[in-house]
């Protein structure tokens, strides 16, 4: 294989390549809305995937996600991009059924690299219990890869962004900080060798966390990706018409990400997230580095779960089997002036 660095072919990688939420919102507002009562979840509340009801007991989940390489190893990139795309189905409480590849690839790059990217993706689809059934590829100066995924869910068991209630406990299933760590690694500043920890987190399917939620009263769920922890929490509290308190010392972090943030290894995407969240968050005595990681864009991040307080400990215990970093990070409160308070 050639020793080309995949990340050097792109200006932005992973979910950091996302168009900022504020900009997206104003563009989407202009789109014509086709009313159909069977569309159970559309883009009104910035949810993770669209859901269309087929029968009384069956709804189809559709989602799509792709981005430029966040890592140099093509097989690993394939795994991460696929785990990230599949995650949207899990964030809605669904089961993965089929997936299709989406590929952009430079004409002059070794085919072997493409083969490894696709293999990494295929392995994750298999692990998800889904079937890869095709795809589409185009020539592109910057490589890109992802999946279009179809899943199913019982219409009454959909886990949307909305639905969180005051008094709910918030659980986060993976550590934050993969954006900072990969930025450090790609700039050869990963002095604490945290890259492998970040890679392991990004390739871990949210399937297991999703399955752990079975049998518990879950009011809302989303996955943490490009808009960062606070960006996605903002979407949840807005959709649910609640406020949230986050205990920043309880949040699981990749340790190195905090020290890198202290050294100002910080990303543009995190700054865009900070701007998007703006005055909706109040920080009480939270050091700069922790703030920065709370805004850090995650690629294939964990699930943020809002559940009934009495269920929280039992759910956490179940989650920890496959997601040992899962933590209770805060709680929902009645909607107040500040939508999010971090203490």
């Amino acid at each position, binding site marked *: 294989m050639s020793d080309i660095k995949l990340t050097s072919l792109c200006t932005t990688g992973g979910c950091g390549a996302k168009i900022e939420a504020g900009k997206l919102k104003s563009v989407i507002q202009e789109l014509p809305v086709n009313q159909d009562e069977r569309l159970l979840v559309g883009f009104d509340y910035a949810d993770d995937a669209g859901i269309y009801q087929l029968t009384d007991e069956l709804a189809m989940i559709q989602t799509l996600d792709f981005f430029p390489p966040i890592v140099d190893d093509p097989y690993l990139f394939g795994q991460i991009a696929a785990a990230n795309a599949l995650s949207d189905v899990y964030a809605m409480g669904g089961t993965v059924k089929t997936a299709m590849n989406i590929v952009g690839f430079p004409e002059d790059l070794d085919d072997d690299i493409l083969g490894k990217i696709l293999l990494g993706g295929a392995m994750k689809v298999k692990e998800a219990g889904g079937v890869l059934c095709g795809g589409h590829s185009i020539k592109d100066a910057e490589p890109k890869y992802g999946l279009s995924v179809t899943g199913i869910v019982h219409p009454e068991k959909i886990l949307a962004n909305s639905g969180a209630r005051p008094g709910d406990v918030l659980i986060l299933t993976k550590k934050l900080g993969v954006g900072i760590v990969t930025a450090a690694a790609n700039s050869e*500043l990963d002095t*604490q060798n945290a890259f492998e920890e970040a890679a392991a987190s990004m390739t871990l399917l949210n399937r297991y966390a999703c399955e752990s939620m079975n049998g518990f009263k879950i009011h809302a769920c989303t996955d943490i990706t490009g808009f960062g922890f606070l960006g996605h929490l903002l979407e949840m509290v807005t959709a649910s018409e609640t406020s949230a308190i986050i205990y920043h010392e309880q949040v699981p972090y990749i340790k190195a990400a905090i*020290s890198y943030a202290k050294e*100002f290894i910080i*990303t543009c995407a995190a700054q865009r997230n900070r701007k998007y969240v703006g005055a909706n968050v109040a920080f009480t005595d939270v050091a700069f580095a922790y703030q920065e990681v709370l805004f850090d864009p995650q690629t294939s991040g964990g699930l943020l779960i809002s559940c009934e307080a009495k269920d929280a400990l039992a759910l956490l215990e179940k989650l920890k089997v496959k997601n040992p970093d899962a933590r209770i990070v805060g709680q929902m409160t009645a909607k107040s002036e500040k939508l999010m308070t971090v203490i």
Partner: protein
Amino acid sequence: MYKIDAKGLVCPKPVILAKKALVQHDIIYIEVDNSASKENLEKMAVVMGLESETKSEGNIYAITLSKTESTKLETEKSEAYIIVINREFMGSGSEELGNALMKSFIYTVTETEEPPKTILFYNGGVKLTTKGSQVLGDLEKLSQNNVEILSCGTCLNYYGLSDALEVGEITNMYEILKRQQEAGKVLYV
């Protein structure tokens, strides 16, 4: 004034370049071509207590960052620290206790959020980096986390341990002096 052209670069690069330059220079001037980089530089200025001034022309932002008298002291203080260990046991008194304390000390160093840049071992200290030492595992962990582990060559010779070094590198008096001169802070154990 030190000038940096960071146009065409995305975060974290412009901020990292600026931060590096601030180690040597009191005033820097940096040009970037995206607003997020500009804002990240301004954020760094606030956190580091620097004065910042931004001028923009179209998509180009020119930011001047300058240290104030108090931040000059701060940056010196926050420089990386090193640890010097010149004996096998920690503290004077019981050797048994000193042994346990040393073990616990080195373990604590592995757990701290801000590890030292270097740990220098000389005289009896070199018994900790050589065969039979009880802290090899923790020192290995530190070494993997890029903490420089240096043992005095003369001392290894004296104790007949030249072939027994298990972790880190052998060093000389020149380096031992230089590391201590360059360090922001030196902790003697």
